[in-house]
């Protein structure tokens, strides 16, 4: 699941608190992006909450529902990823 992102322009944070109020019309994921490399915006951390019980075979082996923190690792994201080719490193859930 790739999803969409909206990034705050020209601001950089290392130690911070970010708070959002989120609402959506289904049980899929939303969350906060952080640590995005301004020189390579494909590299970032993602903290997300998800209430769906997908996927049957998640590449990071953590099936929903979850609250998870991941980090992009530079590998391409696509629909055929395996745990070995996953484009993100699982940090914690």
């Amino acid at each position: 699941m790739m999803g969409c992102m909206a990034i705050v322009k020209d601001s950089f944070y290392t130690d911070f608190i970010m708070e959002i109020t989120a609402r959506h019309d289904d049980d899929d994921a939303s969350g906060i992006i952080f640590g995005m490399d301004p020189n390579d915006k494909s590299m970032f951390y993602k903290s997300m909450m998800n209430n769906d019980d997908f996927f049957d075979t998640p590449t990071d082996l953590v099936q929903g529902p979850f609250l998870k923190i991941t980090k992009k690792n530079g590998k391409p994201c696509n629909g055929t990823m395996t745990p070995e080719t996953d484009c993100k490193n699982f940090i914690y859930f």
Partner: protein
Amino acid sequence: MLGYSAREGAFTKDQFLNGRLASVDYFPNEYAAEYEDFTQHNLNAKTVTFTLIVYEGEARAYFTSAKNNIIGVWTTLPSDYAGGMVGLFMGAHQATFTSIKIADISDAATPMTNKCKFDGATCDTTVGLCLGGPTSFPTATPSSAPTFFEDCQDPFRHPASEYVVNLFVS
């Protein structure tokens, strides 16, 4: 305050239902029951306030459920974490984000220091208190705008930027 008092101690790891630095390969069934509160927030257009705290190499992400339980994770970030840009993520239908607040809590942050002096008090940084200040309300309207200086540091307050972003994806 966004839920992190004095940078530590506001929440203990025991309050996080899945603990800290657990090492399991699969999402265990017993955890699913703990996440039951998670179903409270985003079905049928319900809302949730989601908070992420990153400080000194640790990340805490949580929300408070309808049952007033803290549902969250607390972990150590990789050693090469260097900060960066922040933003919103959505992989859901018709997501709406409101009341977005970001507070820089790094040592290099410019603290919101002017309120103490603006109120006519003296900021004592050794104790973190505003001392003195006016004892009564003014009786006359000032003839000119007040001036103040950002030379007093209040260690418990930091600037917060607020944004409102609505994302609609079908």
